[in-house]
């Protein structure tokens, strides 16, 4: 079959260039393969016969394989595709009797294959050594399977790297530009994370620890970089069978990885297509120069627009990923062009771009204040349940009854009507789980169609005390303190009393029910402001940390913290009674 293919003239020239390029790459590939072997096997069996230790040692060579292969693929692509960027070599290669697309494809393929050889050698030898030294071990099959998956992931990642690097080489006019652009795109997110972590993000979002900040740092910055994205995948690949209890690829951003993979395929296809259209006389000159003003304007506009959209917008993480990919590609050409044109010439373009961005902001502002989500609160009939979290008050309650949902919506509208401005964060599609310990009200709706709407408002809770209190005194909220139904199986529990003196007492569960019911009644009947319950200013007595001890299982099953105002006299009497019971017990 091979001979038949070789006799095909079209394939023959491709094969000859591929073979020749592979041959020329041999020194780099051999050195990398030796390093890969040494790093993965070098200290495999030193002073141990423990199979788990050997397997672990075998596996920890994999990060080095990633480093070696990543470096190798970048070098091979730069070396093998630089023929496009040097007048001398362009003259030689483009005069050869082979189509430009085949020439590019053959050189690309040789680079890619060359880069995965050390990966294959490293992985396969890991498996061989594992079978040699750990045969009979229960984990060996599982281990080998994990290693093969790691190999597949690495090959896919190298393909992404190779394709993107080839794209850079194709669409930039100079090898140096291409390498520089690739590095900038890869490492810029690192810098962004470092630089924007505190002051800049705080000024943009109002609060450094906000959800948008977190999204910006974790997803935007992460997704913008193929290097980061794939490195993350690489690190996560180490998690598999770490404790020999199953693969943990669930944590990996598979969607992000797949998006990069698809982008890589598209970049490669477009690069191969462009190979025949490329003006070879441009060797040494950036291709993007004529397009620079347009690209720069677009980029600036999108960037400015995205920052403001992230502040006020309602973007899903997928949007960030896609936008980040586009920005990454545009960023690469921009940087290479800036290298050639200089900043002064770009000033006008940047200003024009900023003006475009401003236009986007105005449109966004109109959208936000007019028909935007800021004013969009779900209809009560669409809400399946809603959770309200009031920070500092340590209050959290879930409501399912329609009347309670309406109360929450009333609170939500109250907050919106007071326009908390940029000090709130919004994210759709994710539930906010972090508690940042600042004054905030968070409302998480679960709609009947399964969607989530999650809002957190950094605002003075005092401003909304009436609404909050209204919710606080609702039946559902009180239900939380009734200790039903979660702890029905409890036989007794430990009560930790945090006031004069602090004490741990073991009391029957029935007593706790009585205590909770009394507390609930007193809260409902009494005229307690949220502040009484919240800050402790009016509360001289605390009873916190009710620890529920399950006698059957012999373990603590849950904790409850109650803030008891001094006006809840009956509750306090019961606590004292419990103290007596505890003393007896």
């Amino acid at each position: 079959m091979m001979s038949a293919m070789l006799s095909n003239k079209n394939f023959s020239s491709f094969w000859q260039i591929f073979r020749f390029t592979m041959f020329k790459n041999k020194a780099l590939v051999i050195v990398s393969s030796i390093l890969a072997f040494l790093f993965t096997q070098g200290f495999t069996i030193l002073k141990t016969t423990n199979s788990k230790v050997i397997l672990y040692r075998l596996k920890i060579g994999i990060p080095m394989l990633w480093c070696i292969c990543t470096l190798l693929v970048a070098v091979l692509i730069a070396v093998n595709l630089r023929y496009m960027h040097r007048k001398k070599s362009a003259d030689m290669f483009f005069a050869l009797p082979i189509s430009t697309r085949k020439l590019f494809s053959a050189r690309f393929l040789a680079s890619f294959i060359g880069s995965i050889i050390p990966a294959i050698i490293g992985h396969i030898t890991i498996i061989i050594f594992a079978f040699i030294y750990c045969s009979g071990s229960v984990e060996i099959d599982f281990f080998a399977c994990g290693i093969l998956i790691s190999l597949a992931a690495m090959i896919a990642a190298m393909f992404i790297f190779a394709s993107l690097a080839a794209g850079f080489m194709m669409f930039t006019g100079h090898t140096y530009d291409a390498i520089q652009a690739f590095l900038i795109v890869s490492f810029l997110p690192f810098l962004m994370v470092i630089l924007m972590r505190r002051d800049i993000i705080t000024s943009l979002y109002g609060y450094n620890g906000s959800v948008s900040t977190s999204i910006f740092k974790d997803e935007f910055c992460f997704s913008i970089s193929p290097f980061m994205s794939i490195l993350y995948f690489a690190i996560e690949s180490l998690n598999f069978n770490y404790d020999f209890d199953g693969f943990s690829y669930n944590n990996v951003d598979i969607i992000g990885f797949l998006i990069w993979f698809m982008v890589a395929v598209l970049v490669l296809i477009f690069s191969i297509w462009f190979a025949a259209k490329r003006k070879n006389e441009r060797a040494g000159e950036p291709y993007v120069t004529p397009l620079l003003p347009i690209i720069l304007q677009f980029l600036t506009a999108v960037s400015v627009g995205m920052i403001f959209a992230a502040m006020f917008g309602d973007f899903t993480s997928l949007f960030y990923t896609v936008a980040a990919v586009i920005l990454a590609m545009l960023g690469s050409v921009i940087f290479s062009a800036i290298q050639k044109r200089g900043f002064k010439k770009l000033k006008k373009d940047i200003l024009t771009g900023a003006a475009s961005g401003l236009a986007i902001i105005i449109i966004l502002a109109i959208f936000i204040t007019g028909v935007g989500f800021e004013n969009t609160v779900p209809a009560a009939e669409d809400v399946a349940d809603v959770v309200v979290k009031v920070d500092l008050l340590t209050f959290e309650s879930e409501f399912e009854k329609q009347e309670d949902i309406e109360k929450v919506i009333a609170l939500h509208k109250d907050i919106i009507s007071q326009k908390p401005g940029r000090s709130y964060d919004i994210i759709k599609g994710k539930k906010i789980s972090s508690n940042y310990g600042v004054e905030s009200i968070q409302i998480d709706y679960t709609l009947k169609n399964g969607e989530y709407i999650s809002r957190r408002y950094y605002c003075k809770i005092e401003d909304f005390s009436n609404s909050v209190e209204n919710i606080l005194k609702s039946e559902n909220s009180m239900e939380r303190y009734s200790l039903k139904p979660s702890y029905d199986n409890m036989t007794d529990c430990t009560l930790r009393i945090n006031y004069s003196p602090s004490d741990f007492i073991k009391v029957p569960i029935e007593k706790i029910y009585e205590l909770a019911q009394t507390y609930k009644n007193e809260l409902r009947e009494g005229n307690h402001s949220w502040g009484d319950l919240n800050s402790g200013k009016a509360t001289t007595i605390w009873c916190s940390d009710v620890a529920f001890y399950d006698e059957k299982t012999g373990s603590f099953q849950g904790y409850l913290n109650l803030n008891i105002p001094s006006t809840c006299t009956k509750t306090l009497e019961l606590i004292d009674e419990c103290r007596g019971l505890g003393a007896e017990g």
Partner: protein
Amino acid sequence: MIEIKNLTKRFDNILALNNVTITVEKGQVYGLVGSNGSGKSTLLRILSGIFMPDSGTVTIDGEAVYDNPKIKEKIAFVSDSPCFFLHANLIDMAKFYARLYPRFSFERLEEINKIFPIDKKAKLQNMSKGMQRQAAVMLALACQPDYLFLDEAFDGLDPVMRDALKGIIACEIEDNGLTVIISSHNLRELEELCDSVGLIHFSDLVFSKAVSDIKTDIHKIQTAFKNLPEESEFNELELLKSERTGNLIQLIVKGDMDKIKPIIEAVEPIFFEEIPLTLEEIFIYELGGKGYDVSHVIQ
């Protein structure tokens, strides 16, 4: 046959070639002359399929060249700055070309190596410019092409090697019907080799003719008179230039010698002699007559 019709090529705002039309018959040697940056190399690169024409057509044996491997197999191009792989020697490069050019002959390489004695195992990148050019020519000829394009081929070669190269090209033409296009800014180098010559000046092809036609069409005449004739007596001649030193007059005249001679003899010269013109002189007089100042173009 090479046919270039209305070829135009731009590099951004720079017009490299403007509406160039040239036809080169099979087995001919065509010389391209022009100053640096006139467009000679661009034309050769387009002919070799390196650049895409912006407009116009470039065909070899009736087929477009760009991205056409079938035609490119018949072409060998020697660039003005030859490229070799890092650490490669002549054998390495020969092996590379042999993979892609079906007619590549190691025997032919050996034959030419006897004329250009280059160490086949020495690294090409360490060689002098002249030796690198010899190596590039050797490799090109070993491909046994039908069409050979040489960009500043004689640049950097010593006189012996220049003659050797001319000899090899002449043999190839005679034995294999090779068609050659050579660019140079030194017309003297091309004079004895070329069948036709074209001058490219500021992207325009201002002149393209067979050398034989050029030489029969323009004449340098040296004559002396007892009594100096009136200028009006030469009105019938297409005089490109006249120069007087005492009684001796030197005339550059365009036209048929059979018609020129009776007109001068009618003025009864004491002495009349036709002096052979160099190609360089012909170009200068011819183009100067057309209003082109090309004295700086042709070295």
